[in-house]
């Protein structure tokens, strides 16, 4: 208010500066607002918008960092090659297969953990929250190395545990079948964030809803299914979106566990790994740019699909939030 008053007096004293219906107050706000957000605007152009468009231009070329000056435009050739390249289909399939297994399991386990550490009947809730969260802080490379040891068939603990139950454990990291459950299992270590955001969502559910349900003799599962889940569906939606996109960016674990080979039998040749290898191992940067654009389009389409269908299953409690 005070700013307004001050700005208005200055507007009155200098009416000439008034243009296009913009008051001095508005100009003051615009000027300072733009000054403060300018680092992001500069960064957005320099590190996001221009590079994305440049990626598109690169994708029409045969750019090779070894002979950068021999670059020429080759039209849609990279995209034609992509359609013929078996590795593109393989990497998409690997990504989808992993996502199809990892996302439901992670979500279910995350919900379970959040419900557990939210339970009135758990003593030392903060202790549990902190420790379940903690592995999320472990660098991916360290986590991958630890899990590779745990899953080692000779010296690891996982198969010792399984063999204690009388079953022979699989060769987790060298079987084209078991590698996906292995990756999902390792991924469970990174559920801290999911657990914490779901927990915060659960704590935001008004208690009256549960009390009303208790009067109607709803059991714990019914309460969870009919009250908790719908009420926290925006948080689930947010995490689901990030997980779907995350599958297409999946790189670190696949690279560290298998030294970027995509072994066993291309079963860890994730989309992002295939892109990396084309760009930095085979030096096919033009082709990799085409792969990057396809990735960008896929992520964009998935996001649009998720957001446009969200109205059907995401429940935004009557605050009129977007």
């Amino acid at each position, binding site marked *: 208010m005070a700013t307004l008053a001050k700005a208005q007096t200055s507007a009155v004293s200098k009416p000439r500066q008034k243009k296009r219906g913009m008051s001095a107050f508005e100009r003051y706000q*615009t000027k300072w607002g733009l000054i403060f957000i300018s680092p*992001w605007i500069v960064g957005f152009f320099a590190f996001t918008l221009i590079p994305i468009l440049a990626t598109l231009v690169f994708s029409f070329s045969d750019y090779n960092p070894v002979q950068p000056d021999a670059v020429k435009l080759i039209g849609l050739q990279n995209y034609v090659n992509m359609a013929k390249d078996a590795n593109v289909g393989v990497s998409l399939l690997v990504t989808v297969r992993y996502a199809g297994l990892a996302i439901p399991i992670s979500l279910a386990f995350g919900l379970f953990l959040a419900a557990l550490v939210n339970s009135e*009947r758990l003593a030392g809730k903060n202790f549990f929250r902190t*420790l379940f969260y903690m592995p999320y802080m472990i660098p991916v490379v360290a986590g991958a*190395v630890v899990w590779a*040891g745990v899953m080692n068939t000779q010296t690891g603990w996982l198969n010792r545990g399984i063999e204690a139950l009388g079953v022979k454990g699989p060769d987790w990291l060298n079987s084209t079948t078991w590698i996906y459950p292995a990756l999902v299992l390792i991924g469970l270590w990174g559920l801290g964030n999911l657990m914490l955001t779901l927990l915060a969502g659960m704590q935001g559910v008004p208690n009256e809803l549960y009390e009303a349900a208790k009067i109607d003799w709803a059991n714990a599962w019914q309460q969870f299914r009919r009250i908790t889940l719908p009420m926290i569906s925006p948080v689930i939606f947010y995490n689901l979106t990030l997980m779907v996109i995350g599958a297409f960016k999946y790189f670190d674990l696949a690279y560290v566990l298998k030294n970027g080979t995509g072994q066993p039998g291309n079963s860890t040749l994730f989309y992002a790994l295939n892109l990396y290898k084309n760009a930095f191992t085979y030096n096919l*940067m033009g082709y990799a740019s085409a792969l990057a654009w396809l990735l960008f389009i896929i992520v964009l389409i998935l996001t649009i699909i998720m957001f446009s269908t969200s109205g059907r299953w995401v429940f935004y409690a009557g605050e009129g939030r977007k």
Partner: protein
Amino acid sequence: MATRQPVPRADWTRNRGGRRHLTGKQRKILSKLPITIIGVLILVTFLAPLGYMFTTGLKSTEQMSDPGVPFYWPFSRRTFLYEGQELELYKVPAADGVQELAAVKKTRVKTTFIDPNDVTAGLIEWEGNWRTLKPVYYADPQWENFRRVWDELNLPLRFRNTFIIAGFGTLGAVLSSVLVAYGFSRFDFRGKGVLFMILIATIILPVQATLIPTYVLYSRIGWTNTFLPLIIPHFFANAYNVFLLRQYFLQIPREMDEAATIDGANPFRVLVSVILPQSIPAMTAVCLFHFFFAWNDFFLPLVYLVSKPDLWPLSVALQRFNADYGRLPNLIQTGALITLVVPVVVFFVAQRIFMQGIVFTGVEK
């Protein structure tokens, strides 16, 4: 309790049911028992890989290739020096229980032992296959594994590199995000909503979509094989940090900066003397976010520093170590332990602020 001073009335009413309250408390503890036990079991399983890492990282290389040794702790075989030879000790059944004897000569049908506690007693013959005997182990954590990994990984250099990347990046992330968040939270201008939407939309953008031209540009201006690509972009704000700080700034009453404005403070002054002092927790959270991000980041250091081993941060160095030292799985675990200890300790120290920050960004969206 009995010597309690007279208490005010309200307290007295509460205290009257003291005994019943106690049994109620006991019942409460009892009712929490089943879920808590389940929680402990899950937690122990969940964190068991860390136990593997700790124990394996302290094991000797011999133990790694000896399947007979108990797996749950670093053990070594007990030996006995006899006439210039190192003899292994075995548990040998004897008339009066089990004796721990050093094997002098081993054959399939007969083994000659000597008692390490009583060498003068001379050689002892035992009929039977020595392979059926259990060797004698003793707990023997190999602390020198740390020394070896320290040298092999060149850890002082790795820590220095990691701290440079994380430190400067954090500085840039906080400075730029504070400015941008202030702009978005305190000023009204045309197009602000659209710009903010674009900012948030960059969250979904895969790094690969911008990677190749950026890489080419950096290599043209000589930035590849330097820390610059890992630091400079963070001086231009990022969506998560701006979102978190903006939410925080919006909660600070506007009356306060307006009062400062009347007193003649320009917007920079308002930011520094009004907003920032009240936003320490949010800024701490942003610092922590970036610090952890930079410490953990693997992909971009790999891309930009791969051919310059002297500049590798811990993450890349550990990956290379893992790839090259497959025959020393114990040392790899030692390396993992060293890599994760800093972020985990920082997390435990600052966990309250950190976890609040997560909730703040994660749920509001």
